[in-house]
């Protein structure tokens, strides 16, 4: 506990886009509740404590740490270990930390492939074939950059995690609800969910929150969304042939994308009890295909032009598939 008697709170971003921080800032006046009930010990976006200050804290002295972003390089992993040591409750906050998110799709490519692309694009002039070096000797001295890992890891692949908060980003009303719960726990008015639980989300699927009508209709083809002449504003997108990920995706966002006539892309991760997101989605898609003829089924499935992206868009790094050997060797608790 801190000098002012309030429990300590921390939030950190590893390899992330900053959207999680924006989502937290968007909880508005609830931020004041955080301030009233916690001593904000470490939160780079909002205040100025440093790694060194965190290192100096006693172990387990931070009550709650929200960790967002994936583990993309050595520095990310070092901070994950540091915050694990210092925190009583470590939350994998948002899709990147929980399951890898979009940057986890990089696990389909080797570091060499990534460098070959990024440092040799059509607008890049690189006659010397430079690529980033962890140590590089300039005339004035050596410059260091952190080691880029062969794959992006989820937080629980490098340290044990207490809770998971899904979403890209987690919706602000869900963040506010979690803040409220933790404050109640502090005041003895509620208890924490069991360790390992997913918090700040529903226990069902996006379809259950979706206002669109489902008629248990089956389809003869998948279509790409830009090919649809006029998207029916009332009817289930999947029944219109648009590959919507709602049936496999955890609810909690309020079905924002399908409500806006855009397919769910799965940012809230697998629904409760689903071990592997892609497998569940394949099952869901298979169930709407109206055919018993293997050739026709194949033809219909060819309407999904990018299976790995469709079925593991947000959770390749955290899925059972996990591309890349080093990910299998992760020492996390999951």
């Amino acid at each position, binding site marked *: 506990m801190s000098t002012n008697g309030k429990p300590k709170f921390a939030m950190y971003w590893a390899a992330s886009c900053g959207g999680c921080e924006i989502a937290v800032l968007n909880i508005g006046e609830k931020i004041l509740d955080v301030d009233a009930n916690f001593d904000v010990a470490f939160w780079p976006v909002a205040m100025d404590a440093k790694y060194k200050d965190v290192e100096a804290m006693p172990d387990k002295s931070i009550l709650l740490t929200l960790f967002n972003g994936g583990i993309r390089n050595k520095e990310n992993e070092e901070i994950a270990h540091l915050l694990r040591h210092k925190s009583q409750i470590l939350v994998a906050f948002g899709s990147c930390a929980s399951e890898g998110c979009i940057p986890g799709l990089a696990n389909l490519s080797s570091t060499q492939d990534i460098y070959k692309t990024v440092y040799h694009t059509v607008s890049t002039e690189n006659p010397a074939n430079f690529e980033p070096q962890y140590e590089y000797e*300039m005339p004035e001295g050596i410059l260091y950059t952190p080691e880029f890992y062969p794959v992006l890891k989820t937080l629980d692949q490098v340290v044990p995690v207490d809770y998971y908060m899904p979403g890209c980003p987690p919706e602000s009303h869900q963040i506010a609800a979690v803040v409220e719960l933790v404050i109640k726990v502090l005041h003895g008015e509620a208890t924490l969910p069991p360790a390992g639980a997913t918090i700040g989300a529903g226990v069902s699927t996006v379809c259950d929150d979706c206002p669109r009508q489902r008629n248990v209709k089956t389809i003869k083809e998948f279509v790409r969304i830009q090919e649809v002449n006029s998207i029916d504003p009332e009817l289930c997108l999947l029944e219109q042939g648009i590959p919507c990920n709602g049936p496999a995706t955890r609810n909690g966002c309020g079905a924002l994308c399908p409500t806006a006539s855009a397919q769910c892309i799965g940012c809230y991760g697998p629904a409760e009890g689903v071990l592997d997101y892609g497998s569940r989605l394949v099952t869901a898609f298979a169930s709407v295909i109206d055919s018993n003829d293997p050739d026709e089924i194949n033809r219909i499935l060819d309407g999904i032009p990018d299976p790995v992206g469709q079925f593991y868009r947000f959770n390749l790094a955290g899925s059972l598939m996990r591309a890349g050997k080093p990910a299998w060797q992760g020492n996390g608790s999951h």
Partner: protein
Amino acid sequence: MSTRITIDPITRLEGHGRIEIFLNEEGNVANTYFQIPELRGFERFCVGRPVEEMPLLTNRICGVCPEAHHMAAAKAADAVYHVEPPRTGKLLRELLYSGFYFTDHTTHFYALAGPDFVMGPTAPVAERNILGVIHKVGLEIGGKVIQARKYGHHIVEIIGGRKVHPCTSIPGGLTKGITEEQRVEIEQMGHWAIEFAQFSLQLFSDIVLGNKEYLDLILGDIYTHQTYSIGLVDENNKVNFYDGKVSVVAPDGERIGKYAPNEYTDWIAERVEPWTYLKFPYLKKVGWKGFVDGKDSGVYFATPLSRLNASDGMTTPLAQEQYEKFYATLGGKPVHQRLAIHWARLIELLYAAERIVELATDPEITSPNFHTVPTATPTEGVGIVEAPRGTLTHHYKTDERGILTEVNLIVGTTNNYAPISMSINKAARSLIHNGSVVTEGMLNMVEMAFRAYDPCFGCATHSLPGQMPLEVTIRDANGETVEVLRQHC
């Protein structure tokens, strides 16, 4: 004794931005290096994905400006499919984008830049934050700032379906339109936004322009660089955030040309250095001459100020008045004093607000004709928008099914990597002499050099108190720490 100074800003968006300052034997600056130590590899892993997903995937490059990636990606995907969205589709996208600009520029001015000017660059650290600003100018204004951010986000949500990472732009237009009720709501927010932007410009005028010390600081040499300016302009060379050609203006004000999105590789090239993960874009026609000023150096900048420099004015009346006042006050075009970026940003804030009302009152904005189904075989396309932090270019190639085979991105802040590095170098040289470091001013002066660009790799830009924590460690030749300087730490 050769000494090395490391400045480690900890508040950042991606990775750990680091400044290394090397001193020579005399204790003067030998060189400075600004390193960006993080990479995620979007240009590689987007290959193999369907092109219509790019407005969703590339949102995740930046959660602070996902709208910019959403738009650049949608425009590039339109180009890949050789399809033009119907007029309503373009209007809706630009309206979403204007709402985003309004929120983003408000956040930057009040949370980040405001404290330096409203409180003063030498005010006590504890007061140089947004709370200090609110205390000085009144609680009511704090409420207005929060309201401004909410309104902008709300416009994004109405059209884009979500507050963060919008989802409705697809090749050929959008998945949905807006109702008359929503239109009225946006128009009302737009009128409020115009008043707020005018109020913000008045505040800037009263507090900054009315204070000789601040004006001298803006006009001072330490924050001046003679580089090229670039920015997106319409067919009349007026500023536009969503569409047009990129105008390129030399340090002496001569427009050396304009390029359409699909001509960008004739104009822009990127340089790789082995000591950083980020590339350095420069003007290909001029060439890379190192981190130097002048007409012979291909270094350019892409910010609110460069957009004004590269244009002939604004299309909206109130912003045009401010544009004229800006150049009249600062001695004509182009303006090179980098702190004037803050003023230019407020002129853009007013333009965005006026544009919200213009677009929301267009008779076609509620038309159901917001999407054209693409029919041509997809091939290759480039989409360019002006992100708040610089010209954003997305370039895609696909196979005949619209599956990506090549992706190239030149992201807003990346444009400014070289000029920011130069600003840091200049600040260091003017503050370190014969081994003595101006400890008091050093950190804040470097920080201000940084902040004018609103760099996204130091998402310090969007930090709540508006402070960039910096630490300077001075080490002797053996690597032993001699002194540690800290600010906001």
